[in-house]
């Protein structure tokens, strides 16, 4: 067990540390600039976003009492995407400054947070009603994701050329290309969200024994559920506002961690954070190296890995 924890940590760290140099660098001054201004901030961004999304996914599995619950399957990501797109597309039109204008990450994050909550809360209510079967929650998530997707497409249709290009690139899910600005704006969201979620470990462990039992053991279940959902939505929204919807990270990583280390949240939550950081850094590296000279957005890679994983999990689950 300890050996496996150490192995995952080392693996993650190795990917993170090595990836800025992977694929080679131009010589001289340019190489230094590429390394410091492009590669390193981008890897750091992958670390933060991958860590947050995975930790939120691990927590969502617990509060939804559903191993397939993740920000991307219960609609949080879709809601955040819709909210952020509204800010991106409508922001400039309303004179609030769009993302392209480079001033409005907080605005975009706020809109994404609002969207994430509007979509997540009804789904959480379905899950909390206690009458929902395991897959009802996911179906509700799919339904709202489709609705949010349709609205988002409609929104893009009405956008002008410049906003459209920003929106399309952004909605593929990509890590920003240059500099540390976005990273510095993301950290004030990411750090408190992760700290809060990690502090819920004992309550989430008690929830594994069933909601009612956890309640009698002293867990304020509605409060833990609402706060975890809210903070999780905030973390996802901040990531989405910067990078667009990077799907499936929050689903795949907690499963890898559970398979390797077991379901005890005391191990699973921090290790999801660590493994998620390495996982997204690896995916981004893959996107950079697969097609030489052309970069695939990281969201394409995670979706390519995540969608089959989801199908596999559903098939496996329905057999169990």
């Amino acid at each position, binding site marked *: 067990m300890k050996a496996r924890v150490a192995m995952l940590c080392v693996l993650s760290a190795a990917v993170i540390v090595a990836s800025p140099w992977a694929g080679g660098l131009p010589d001289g001054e340019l190489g230094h600039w590429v390394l410091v201004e492009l590669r390193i901030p981008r890897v750091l961004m992958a670390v933060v976003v991958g860590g947050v999304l995975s930790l939120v996914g691990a927590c969502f599995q617990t509060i939804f*009492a*559903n*191993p397939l619950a993740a920000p991307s399957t219960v609609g949080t990501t879709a809601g955040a995407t819709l909210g952020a797109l509204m800010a991106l597309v409508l922001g400039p039109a309303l004179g609030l400054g769009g993302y392209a204008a480079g001033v409005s990450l907080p605005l975009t994050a706020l809109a994404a947070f609002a969207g994430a909550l509007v979509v997540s809360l009804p789904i959480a209510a379905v899950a909390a009603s206690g009458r929902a079967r395991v897959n009802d929650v996911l179906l509700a998530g799919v339904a709202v994701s489709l609705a949010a997707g349709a609205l988002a497409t409609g929104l893009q249709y009405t956008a002008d050329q410049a906003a459209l290009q920003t929106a399309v690139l952004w909605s593929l899910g990509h890590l920003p290309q240059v500099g540390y600005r976005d990273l510095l704006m993301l950290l004030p969201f990411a750090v408190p969200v992760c700290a809060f979620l990690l502090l819920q470990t*004992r*309550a989430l*462990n*008690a929830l*594994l*024994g*069933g909601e*009612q*039992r*956890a*309640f*009698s*053991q*002293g*867990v*304020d279940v509605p409060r833990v559920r609402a706060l975890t959902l809210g903070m999780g939505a905030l973390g996802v929204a901040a990531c989405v506002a910067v990078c667009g919807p990077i799907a499936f990270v929050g689903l795949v990583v907690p499963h890898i961690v*559970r398979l390797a280390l*077991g*379901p*005890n949240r*005391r191990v699973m939550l921090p290790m999801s954070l660590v493994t998620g950081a390495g996982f997204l850094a690896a995916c981004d590296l893959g996107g950079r190296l697969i097609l030489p000279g052309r970069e695939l957005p990281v969201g394409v890679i995670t979706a390519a890995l995540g969608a089959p994983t989801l199908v596999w999990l559903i098939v496996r689950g329905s057999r169990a």
Partner: protein
Amino acid sequence: MTALNLTAVTVTARGRALLDGVSLSLAPGEFLALIGPNGAGKTTLIRAALGMVKPASGKVHLAGDDPRALSGRERAARAAWLPQTGAVIEAVSALELVEAARFRFNESRATSREAAQAALARVRAGALAARPVTQLSGGEQQRVALAAMIAQQAPLLMLDEPANHLDPAQQIATYRLIGELWREGRAVLCVTHDLNLLRHAGDCARMRVAGLADGRVAFDTTMAAAALPDRVAELFGVRVSARDGVILAEDISGVGP
């Protein structure tokens, strides 16, 4: 002070009274068997006792205080609950599940672990510690669940059909264990359909039996009462027979939904 006291408690849901003026009290260290047909309000009574539902009228006192005014941890220090449906969906180990029941204590992980190991040993389930709960038999799962209640260290145990879906040997073992925990000084509120099984908890003469029907207390008597078989027959609407002066009401076992 009573471990649990309900005074004229009425709980309604969608215009229907789940509990209708229920008054019932349980002293520290007392054993109360709560029997009644399905839908009589037995589980609702436990939920009201824990403050999970707000009574439309009446008062609930859990060790002297309104449970709804207590913090989660304060409430957990007064009563533990083994719900009927407490399915564990993930393959946590027995030890981890019992450790989680220490939520109310602000303590180190090592302390939690020691207490959990002691609780598992107490129910003779020490050997199950590392096994995933999802792979245990029903009887083993109930033993682990009782260990979790021990680890929680509450003076009142509320059990909802603890022997449901168990085979006869496991049913008997579960009730024996419940009897042991009772004689160690805990108060027990045990919801059941089956009075016969209660005998395996032992010391029937000191047990109280209350019948609940349509949200009302139909009777509140002792296991030894001569009138008990008749009251039980009335409660379930079946014919019963008593033997050897014991409460044995053969015809009611198996009367379910």
